[in-house]
């Protein structure tokens, strides 16, 4: 299994080469990759149906207990088959749909990368592996949605999808990490066995909310549904693959996967049912706003996803209907929606439009596509003898077992729109005059829809074919062995009545559809997408405002931030620490030193009042000379000489420059804020210094130097021996600094000299 996933990734990376090699046949050639994987997973069917699971694991990042581990049971097998199986047809379809497109090689690579990550996602056993794959699907779908990248709408849709799904992904990450912490394991298969521990854990609610946010954003649940219809900017193979059959089902998969671990609580079922129902109704309602084939299908996908989430919520409340309904409806939806999307693309490709109002009489010119659409539409409407009918029936049975009447009523309404949509989609094929110049597309365009629709019919007629796998899926979702006999004709029961009602309402809605459509399409409806737009606009405005206030371009402001921030932090620390002892004095101040100290303070104050730069330099130099004198009085001759020399040289350098600048500018006055900050900082330095002086210093270093200076350093000037021997490395750094300064001055002035030359 590890090999399967890895080979899918490697195969994807080779796609551009294959494309260059095979050219237009690349679609068929590349389809061998998903086809081979389908065959591989199909070969595992007997094992899984027999109730066994397969688990393969390899160490990935042992430091973080992350394994590259995979786990196969009914649920993951069904998904794996869907992904690789539909993937096969999508790749073939792409070859026809995007024939000759300059970016086709890249497209194959991206969509196969997507397939590989999706496969990894549904098979992953390790939480981190799952998350890695999860984010990879977001990334690849970002690139796929933005395929028509020169259009702003495409770019916007891509960014939106990425932002919403990756945002949810981050919540999911936090949730999964919490889950792992709660259950004490990073392997999902182990967590599933610890459902009771997880549910009783104080973090349960937090982790649940985070996981749900992740799943809901990915699976386009209300209120995050808006990104999915916008993502229809992508080319049709992408819409068909990502936004119907697979990626959007990742969230559903995750919920189903974790159902045994997290489900079974009041909050789980009620949340899933509430959001599922809300999504079902939102999708159904918004369907009426559109006439574009892909948009219509997109909203119907939203609705179906809502139904699936609703079903997962029902699983713990029902005996087995919920789980089986989920398993059946999932397959049915994937088959008919993938087929319908591809067919819609084929129609668009051949007829040049996707507006249902402009399409007519297509059946006569595109009979094969027409048959596929017809069969898929039956499934969408939930009519016999196709799988969609069975799926919906079982879901109704589940709802009847556990949900109150008003909820069932709303669900019927939501499903009814499916019937309406089925009519909307099929009518253009049979009504009106066929357009001229339109004909059936190449086999690559109709093969997928036909096979998928045919499968739906086949399984509908002989549900026994699917029954063993459905039981395995249901067992995985339920977390307990489940079996149910799928039948096309269950006999008269309340569910059948609901089905009839659904169809009736659906047909009724069809007749008001044109008017509803005209009325609803008028204005942009308020909805969560507006909130998204407002949020991002607000964010950008906030950012711009922040830049104006913080990153204002004023050096002064930056320095004030530094001093004020630092003083605040230091002050806080000192205040928290409480007062310390007053330092003891080691020596009295001699009169000469007192005068010096006073003079230096005065000099400092004088600098502040001066109005000439040159005078300021001089006075500052005098203060420096005072420091040198103080050093001399304190028995530091080396220091004193150096300080004198350096002060003089600095003053000369500044004077040299000042004399060359003609327009030197005024000496600006300070502000009260500067004074405050300066006083605060100076005060804190004094306090820190007093604190330092109150600590007993240990002079072990000094004693060592005094002892070793002559016998081992061979020098009597201890300061110099420290400089060149004990701490010679400091001096090495220091002369490097001096050399660098020389280099810098040279670089600065050399440029000047060159510029000044005529």
């Amino acid at each position: 299994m590890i090999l399967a996933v890895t080979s899918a990734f490697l195969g994807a990376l080779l796609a551009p080469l294959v494309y260059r090699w095979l050219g237009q046949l690349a679609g068929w050639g590349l389809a061998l990759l998903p086809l081979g994987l389908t065959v591989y997973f199909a070969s595992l069917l007997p094992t899984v149906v027999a109730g066994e699971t397969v688990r393969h694991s390899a160490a990935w990042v042992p430091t973080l207990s992350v394994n590259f581990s995979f786990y196969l049971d009914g649920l993951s097998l069904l998904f794996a088959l869907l992904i690789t199986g539909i993937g096969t047809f999508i790749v073939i379809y792409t070859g026809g749909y995007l024939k000759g497109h300059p970016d086709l090689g890249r497209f194959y690579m991206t969509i196969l990368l997507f397939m590989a990550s999706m496969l990894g996602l549904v098979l992953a056993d390790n939480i981190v592996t799952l998350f890695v794959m999860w984010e990879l699907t977001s990334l690849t779908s970002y690139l796929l949605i933005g395929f028509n990248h020169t259009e702003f709408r495409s770019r916007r849709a891509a960014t939106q999808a990425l932002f919403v799904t990756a945002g949810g992904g981050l919540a999911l990450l936090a949730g999964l990490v919490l889950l792992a912490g709660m259950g004490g394991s990073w392997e999902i298969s182990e967590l599933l066995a610890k459902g009771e521990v997880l549910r009783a854990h104080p973090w349960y609610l937090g982790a649940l909310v985070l996981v749900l946010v992740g799943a809901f954003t990915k699976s386009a649940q209300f209120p995050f549904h808006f990104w999915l219809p916008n993502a229809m900017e992508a080319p049709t193979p992408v819409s068909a693959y990502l936004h119907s059959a697979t990626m959007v089902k990742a969230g559903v998969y995750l919920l189903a996967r974790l159902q045994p671990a997290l489900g079974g609580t009041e909050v789980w079922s009620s949340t899933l049912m509430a959001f599922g129902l809300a999504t079902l109704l939102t999708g159904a309602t918004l369907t009426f706003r559109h006439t574009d084939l892909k948009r219509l299908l997109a909203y119907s996908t939203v609705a179906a996803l809502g139904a699936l989430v609703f079903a997962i919520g029902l699983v713990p409340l029902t005996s087995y209907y919920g789980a089986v309904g989920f398993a059946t409806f999932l397959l049915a939806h994937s088959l008919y929606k993938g087929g319908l999307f591809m067919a819609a693309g084929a129609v668009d490709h051949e007829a040049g439009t996707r507006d249902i109002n402009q399409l007519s009489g297509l059946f006569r010119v595109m009979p094969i596509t027409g048959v596929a659409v017809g069969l898929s539409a039956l499934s969408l409407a939930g009519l016999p003898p196709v799988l969609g009918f069975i799926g919906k029936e079982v879901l109704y049975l589940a709802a009847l077992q556990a949900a109150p009447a008003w909820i069932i009523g709303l669900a019927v309404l939501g499903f009814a729109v499916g019937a309406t949509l089925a009519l909307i989609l099929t009518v253009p094929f049979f009504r009106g005059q066929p357009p001229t110049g339109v004909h059936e597309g190449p086999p690559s365009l109709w093969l997928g829809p036909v096979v998928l629709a045919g499968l739906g019919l086949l399984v509908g007629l002989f549900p026994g074919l699917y029954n063993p796998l459905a039981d395995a899926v249901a067992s995985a979702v339920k977390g307990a062995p489940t079996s149910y006999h799928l039948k096309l004709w269950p006999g008269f029961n309340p569910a059948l009545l609901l089905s009839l009602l659904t169809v009736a309402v659906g047909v009724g809605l069809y007749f008001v559809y044109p008017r509803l459509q005209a009325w609803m399409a008028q204005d942009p409806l308020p909805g969560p997408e507006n909130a998204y737009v407002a949020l991002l606009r607000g964010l950008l405005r906030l950012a711009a405002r922040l830049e104006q206030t913080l990153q204002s371009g004023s050096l002064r402001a930056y320095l004030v931030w530094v001093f004020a921030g630092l003083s605040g932090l230091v002050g806080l620390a000192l205040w928290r620490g409480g007062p310390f002892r007053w330092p003891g004095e080691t020596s009295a101040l001699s009169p000469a030193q007192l005068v010096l100290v006073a003079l230096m303070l005065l000099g400092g104050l004088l600098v502040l009042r001066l109005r000439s730069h040159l005078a300021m330099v001089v006075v500052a130099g005098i203060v420096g000379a005072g420091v040198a004198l103080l050093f001399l009085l304190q028995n530091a001759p080396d220091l004193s000489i150096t300080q004198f020399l350096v002060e003089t040289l600095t003053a000369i350098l500044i004077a040299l420059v000042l004399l060359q600048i003609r327009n030197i500018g005024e000496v600006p006055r300070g502000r009260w804020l500067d004074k405050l900050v300066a006083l605060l900082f100076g005060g804190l330095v004094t306090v820190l210094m007093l604190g330092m002086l109150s600590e007993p210093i240990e002079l072990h270093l000094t004693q060592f130097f005094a002892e070793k200076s002559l016998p081992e350093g061979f020098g009597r000037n201890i300061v110099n021996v420290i400089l060149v021997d004990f701490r010679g490395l400091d001096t090495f750094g220091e002369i490097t600094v001096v050399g660098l300064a020389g280099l810098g001055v040279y670089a600065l002035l050399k440029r000047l000299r060159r510029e000044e030359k005529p």
Partner: protein
Amino acid sequence: METWMALLVGGLSAVGVYLMLRPHLIQFLIGFLVLGNAANLLIFTSGRLGSAFPPLVQPDGTVLAPYANPLPQALILTAIVIGFALAAFGIVLFFRAEQVLKTLNAEAMPERLEAAPAPSPVDEVREERA
């Protein structure tokens, strides 16, 4: 003596900071020099005061006590030299900046030479034509 030094260092620091906060770069530099002197005095004081002799070993191998702590002196020497290198580079940098930017007022030096509108994920942003 130590208390006085603490006050002196604090006072010089305040003066230095205040000068550094002025927008004029020459004053900034002078502020840096004053603050540097304050820092050196601080380090000097950190080795404690009250010496009577410089830290020189007599030819007979003894050091006359109480001698001044040589370690802070060495540290300050390094710091002075580095400070000097920084100041020397700085003054030439400011000189050069004045030649090119025609001002010594840091507030008048632009941080961005051209306007660049930020892209937005929801609205298409185009460059505004002047």
